[in-house]
């Protein structure tokens, strides 16, 4: 029953795309591609929900995919609670995005294509989720990259979109190469890429010797590189804000369900091979990402970019959770974030849609610009300093009366992401992360984790600040641009309904139960009981082999899991009020969230302070934030330029040196060798030939005189000859 269900989940969206492709080849399009794709996603959603209770057999299907003599690579499905949750999140968000797009994309010249790409996108993500081996995950992984390329560049007439999609693909590919190298390392060691089962990598990892831990850490970090790319962690995060060039539903899909979730999902899946060192790297990357992106988000004015940076920041939270060992918290935040971030993006899409008339106008203007700049394509590009007017928050304000549903739903999402206590899911998941990090810090006495806790707490406060800044600027106060404000209107029901559904999902009652009931178990990490970085602290108890867990009573659960059973005892992370760490974390997180909201209220609603005056006071800091820590400048100015320069150099080298040598050899051969041979040939060989001809010529000239033309002479000579012959024969 499980295999056909998973197959339907995969094949339904794929079929929707295939139908589009086949029709497209015949220069037609399927009459109702939107309905087809949406229906396919709904079917997949139904099947995913059905799978909720079907996790008894984790490996329902394995097929031999490649057989190379002694080595076989197999493909298959893996189904556990995490898979099911991901399936539901992906199909649910994707379905809602499909429905929303019916309204949002209405009237676009490439309307059918949009839905076909959405379907392919969902298929890729679902394939990634259900794969039971690294190769399958990698395939889905790259297909997700391709689809994001296609969708971010959906309005490819805009140069900015064309640049953004290319940037997204290339940046993530850099990370993917790291992941690929990690895969090669694992393959070299274990001769397999399967993750589960007796011959899987996770089983093999347990038997590794202590001396191979460094190597395993390297592999883990390399695999994580893939996640850095896809989940937009520092330093590969720059593509995600640029990806806002795509249509807004795509942003929702990328940010909530598919692309960026893939990275977190991958790290969660690879959790058993993470060693203390690689975990620490992941935690640091996550923490840095969380704070860097949050600070950048404060100063953005483009509504979508604020959300984009908030996604980057939230992804940092998740990575930090996984790196700190709070496996369940990370996944919990992934799901809650999926819903409220999808809601935020769709809400912002609704706002942008409200300005749609302006949008169309703007597009025309933009197209004109492009023609002028047409010849200036290059791998290096200037980007996003100019904000489209319909996305500029400085043009908005007071929209809450015009768009009540949008306002209401976005407010719920904002409260959720800011961590307003108890009612909203975001609070619980964020708190789980903070608690998990603090718990690890206290448990291991690890100074690293204390630092990370502080960083992430600050990031949480900033998150509350900038999210409310967005709400205040957009929906409160007086309209700043009356012309645009007058044109704004509430969106049609196909767009509002998804918003309402997502708003409902942002309440904890709906999506908290599976974490609460211990539906997810933390996988066993074979090598994490050697927290070498914790040993740096003089007072740490280095002798304890089960050190990391001993204080918190997880070891029993671990032990139970080691025996292979799905124990009913839940992992600790999702529980609140369990030990001092979580209590402290909860109190602190409520305080910072409240502080952030308060400040935001003072700045942007009450206008006690103006942002401009603060910005002038802290000019250098502001400039740093405004320029996004100069990552783009560095990449464009240094890395890309270097690559292009190197390629030119190579090409020049090829043309002038290598080809030059070849042509040079040819020239030298012709000039020296051939000249000599030519001379020899002309004078000596040909000279002999001519000489012979001349001799024959002159001899012939003499001899021809014998030919008199008179028959009687000839006859006379003949007679003479006969007589001569007779005489000779006589004499002899």
């Amino acid at each position, binding site marked *: 029953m499980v295999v056909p269900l998973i197959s339907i989940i995969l094949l339904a969206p794929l079929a929707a795309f295939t139908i589009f492709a086949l029709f497209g080849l015949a220069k037609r399009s399927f009459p109702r591609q939107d309905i087809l794709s949406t229906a396919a996603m709904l079917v997949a959603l139904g099947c995913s929900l059905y799978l909720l209770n079907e996790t008894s057999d984790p490996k329902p299907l394995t097929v031999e995919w490649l057989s190379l003599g002694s080595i076989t690579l197999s493909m298959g499905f893996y189904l556990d609670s995490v898979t099911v949750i991901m399936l539901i999140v992906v199909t649910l968000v994707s379905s809602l995005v499909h429905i929303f797009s019916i309204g949002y994309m209405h009237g676009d010249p490439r309307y059918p294509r949009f839905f076909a790409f959405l379907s392919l996108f969902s298929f890729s993500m679902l394939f990634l989720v259900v794969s039971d081996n690294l190769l399958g995950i990698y395939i889905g992984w790259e297909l997700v990259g391709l689809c994001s390329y296609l969708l971010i560049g959906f309005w490819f007439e805009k140069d900015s979109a064309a640049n953004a999609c290319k940037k997204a693909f290339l940046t993530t590919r850099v990370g993917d190469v790291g992941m690929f190298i990690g895969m090669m390392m694992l393959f070299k060691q274990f001769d397999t890429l399967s993750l589960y089962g007796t011959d899987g990598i996770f089983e093999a990892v347990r038997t590794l010797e202590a001396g191979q831990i460094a190597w395993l850490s390297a592999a883990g970090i390399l695999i994580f590189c893939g996640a850095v790319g896809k989940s937009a962690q520092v330093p590969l995060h720059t593509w995600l804000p640029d990806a806002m060039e795509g249509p807004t539903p795509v942003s929702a899909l990328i940010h909530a369900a598919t692309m960026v979730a893939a990275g977190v999902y991958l790290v969660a899946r690879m959790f058993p091979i993470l060693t203390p060192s690689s975990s620490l790297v992941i935690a640091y990357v996550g923490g840095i990402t969380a704070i860097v992106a949050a600070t950048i988000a404060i100063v953005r004015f483009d509504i979508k970019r604020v959300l984009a940076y908030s996604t980057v920041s939230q992804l940092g939270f998740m990575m930090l959770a996984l790196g700190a060992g709070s496996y369940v918290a990370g996944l919990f935040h992934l799901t809650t974030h999926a819903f409220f971030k999808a809601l935020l993006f769709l809400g912002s899409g609704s706002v942008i849609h409200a300005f749609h008339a302006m949008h169309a106008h703007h597009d025309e203007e933009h197209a004109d610009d492009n023609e002028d700049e047409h010849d200036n394509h290059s791998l290096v590009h200037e980007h996003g300093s100019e904000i489209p007017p319909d996305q500029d928050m400085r043009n908005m304000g007071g929209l809450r009366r015009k768009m009540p549903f949008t306002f209401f739903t976005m407010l719920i999402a904002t409260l959720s992401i800011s961590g307003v206590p108890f009612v909203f899911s975001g609070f619980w998941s964020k708190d789980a992360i903070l608690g998990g990090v603090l718990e690890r810090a206290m448990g291991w006495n690890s100074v690293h984790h204390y630092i990370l806790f502080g960083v992430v707490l600050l990031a949480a406060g900033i998150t509350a600040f900038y999210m409310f800044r967005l709400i205040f600027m957009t929906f409160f106060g007086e309209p700043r641009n009356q012309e645009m404000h007058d044109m704004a209107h509430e969106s049609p029901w196909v767009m509002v309904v998804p918003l309402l559904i997502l708003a409902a999902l942002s309440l904890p009652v709906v999506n908290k139960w599976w974490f609460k009931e211990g539906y997810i178990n933390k996988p066993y990490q074979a090598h994490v009981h050697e927290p070498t970085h914790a040993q740096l602290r003089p007072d740490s108890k280095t002798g304890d082999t089960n050190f990391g867990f001993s204080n918190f009573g997880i070891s029993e659960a671990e032990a139970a899991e080691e025996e292979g059973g799905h124990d009913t005892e839940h992992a600790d992370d999702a529980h609140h009020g369990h030990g001092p760490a979580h209590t402290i974390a909860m109190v602190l997180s409520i305080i910072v969230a409240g502080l952030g909201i308060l400040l935001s209220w003072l700045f942007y609603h009450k206008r006690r302070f103006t942002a401009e005056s603060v910005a002038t006071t802290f000019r250098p800091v502001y400039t740093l934030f405004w320029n996004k820590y100069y990552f783009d400048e560095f990449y464009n100015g240094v890395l890309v330029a270097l690559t292009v320069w190197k390629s030119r150099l190579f090409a020049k080298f*090829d043309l002038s040196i290598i080809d030059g040598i070849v042509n040079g050899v040819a020239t030298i051969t012709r000039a020296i060798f051939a000249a000599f041979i030519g001379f020899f040939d002309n004078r000596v060989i040909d000279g002999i030939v001519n000489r012979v001809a001349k001799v024959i010529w002159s001899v012939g000239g003499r001899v021809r005189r014998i030919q008199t033309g008179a028959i009687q002479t000839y006859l006379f000579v003949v007679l003479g000859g006969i007589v001569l012959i007779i005489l000779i024969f006589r004499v002899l």
Partner: protein
Amino acid sequence: MDQILLSLMIFVPLLGMVVVFLLPNDREELIKRVALAFTLIPLVLAVYLFIDYNKSSAETQYFVSVPWIDTFHINYHVGIDGLSVTLLLLTALLGPICVLASWRNIEKGLKAYMALFLLLETGMLGFFASLDLFLFFVFFELTLLPMYFLIGVWGGPRREYAAIKFFLYTLFGSVLMLVAIIAVYLRSNIINDVAEGLRTFDIPELIQRATVEGHALGDSKFQMWVFLGFFIGFAVKVPIFPFHTWLPDAHVEAPTAISVILAGVLLKMGTYGFVRINMAMFPEGLDYFTNGDGFLGHSLALLGFINIVYGSFCALAQTDFKKLVAYSSIGHMGFVILGLAARNAEGINGAVLQMFNHGVISAMLFLLVGVLYDRAHHREINGFGGLGNRMPIYTGITTLAFMASLGLPGLSGFIGEALSLFGAFQEFPLLTILSTIGIVVGAAYFLWTLQRVFLGALNPKYEELPEINRREILTLVPLGILTIVLGIWPNIAIDMFSKSVTNLVNIVSI
């Protein structure tokens, strides 16, 4: 009956050449149809062989061996194993596609063009099937002559330069190869410095003799030198840095269909020869260059690495669409070399698969460039822009081909590349990691090209550019299907040759 099939397949195009010559000059439609028919017959036969081939056996199948030049013990010996049947299928598939691709754009001397093309096809098919060293060489050279004329007569503005460069380069390599062949022949019956039995050119026989204790062919120094002779011959064909500069010129000047054959099949002749002769016959010689011991032991992998990175970077700098694809070919053939240098099952299987896949994908790429060139009459990448709106189907197919070529998983290009790298990583981890730079750069130049040609605002000059037509789609669709199918289920191809490769792995792992 079965025995004659293979020979039939090889010589049907030759018969076609004669028939085309007998047709009147002005019946162009008829000439094209006849040529198409005579390329379709080998395709049907190749498909039949591909299906009928017993893949559970590593033995040579369908072999025919009859004396040809008895004085020198030269036999007409042809046969197929998993490796050659795959490449025969590729060659036979590209035959009719190239005839179709030449349907409208050959302006002069159509009859001679088709006749030469058919001759070329015989040469290629014969090369992949021959199991006698002399026959092998004859077919190798047989491809040279028609290619020279096809580039030199029907090519672009610098065609003569390109054709001569191509010809001389290849000839330079094949002269060294001929020397090596003669050396092998002369030694082929010497065991422990005593002549025993007859000399031979027979490839399986030579491979077998090389393993005999004390046989002159087994001597490792001898193998090294002969290996080098053959290697240079094949390296020019592949092409391996620094013997590659003929390739961009030849590609840029050659007409579309000839570029397709050049990239799709002729380059594979180099790597096929390398596998068939250098690896199978001279494992000791191979060992010198791939055992990971010092510079010499890394040299082959190093060449693969240079090909990948160098080719990719050069491609990034090109502004001529066709030249870009040509350099990308150099890069992709580097993966083949890298995989072969690994000498293990993953590496060699990956390399062979990459040969086939690159044949399909690069054929697609050149066909696509040809489609654009036929319409716009130039290939300057920066001169286009925004064609995505004007030609959506063309854009879609190009995106597919680009993605396949840059190694997107799910399309065939990825599997070969990945397996080659997986194999190479086990022997040469550092070089392999460095080679992955090629993957990123590969993505960069393809995406950049995609952007410059198809994305952005439509260049007003090309507002009336016609969409790709049905005949052109027909040439691309089989290749596109193959790319997708092999990407999803690569075992179809790998099954064919994995037994033969296992055999080879046993030979080379000494």
